[in-house]
């Protein structure tokens, strides 16, 4: 239970950090390249962390070292996926 809470906290902290930094950074409207770079960097961070998390989870399941059941691992993966998609949807507003 503590492991899941810590994991949820990590994702919550990451999303909060990305959101606050995204709000602080207000490049000039004409600085299109910088704005796109910031958005790409945020999406890359999120994607890399999500896939590394998936790989760590799958590795754990394959080795059978994880203390959680398969269902708990699947729920963690689904939660991380939903969070990532939600962040992408919020951040991509106005980027299209």
């Amino acid at each position: 239970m503590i492991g899941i809470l810590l994991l949820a906290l990590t994702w919550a902290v990451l999303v909060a950090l990305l959101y606050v930094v995204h709000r602080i950074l207000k490049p000039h409207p004409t600085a299109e390249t910088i704005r796109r770079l910031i958005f790409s960097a945020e999406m890359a961070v999120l994607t890399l962390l999500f896939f590394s998390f998936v790989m760590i989870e799958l590795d754990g399941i394959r080795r059978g070292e994880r203390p959680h059941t398969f269902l708990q691992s699947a729920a963690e993966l689904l939660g991380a996926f939903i969070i990532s998609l939600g962040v992408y949807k919020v951040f991509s507003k106005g980027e299209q």
Partner: protein
Amino acid sequence: MSDRESSSKQIFKSTIMHLFMDGLVAIAASLCVFGVDEVVKRLPVSDWLVVLTGHIERVVFMAVITVFSLKALAEISLEIYGSIKKGLSVAWLHTKRFKWTAASEVFSYAVGIFGFAFIYGLMHRADLVENVLAKMMIYIAAFLLFCEVAYALADAVKDRVLLSAEARRQMLPAVDR
């Protein structure tokens, strides 16, 4: 001449105020985590919580050092740029604007400390991961996040410097000439 004297006094005063604010943020962040760690050590809690708060304390200290090193670097670079271009001065602000810029800057530094603490935490996590590909992904993500937070900090410093340059032009146009 008197204009120059009063302006140099104002620059000195604003510089001291900024140094004071920086010190305040650094001390507040350090004291918060140090206090939490000390309180947790004295409470009858499980060992993992003591270890976790000790780890957070180290990470926040590292983050504070990184934030203020980067800030000093950005300010020194902008001062050099300003002295080459003439007319920029880091510590030159209208009194009314000073409060708002100082508050937004403190917020930026707090976010920076929080961000760097998270990045150091991520790197510590990556150390424990055995899968090489996942480890590399976490390191790349941490690097990208580091660049973004550093850019946010540099942006906060730049905003203040540009504001101060504008204020300087409005207050004493004769000094620049």
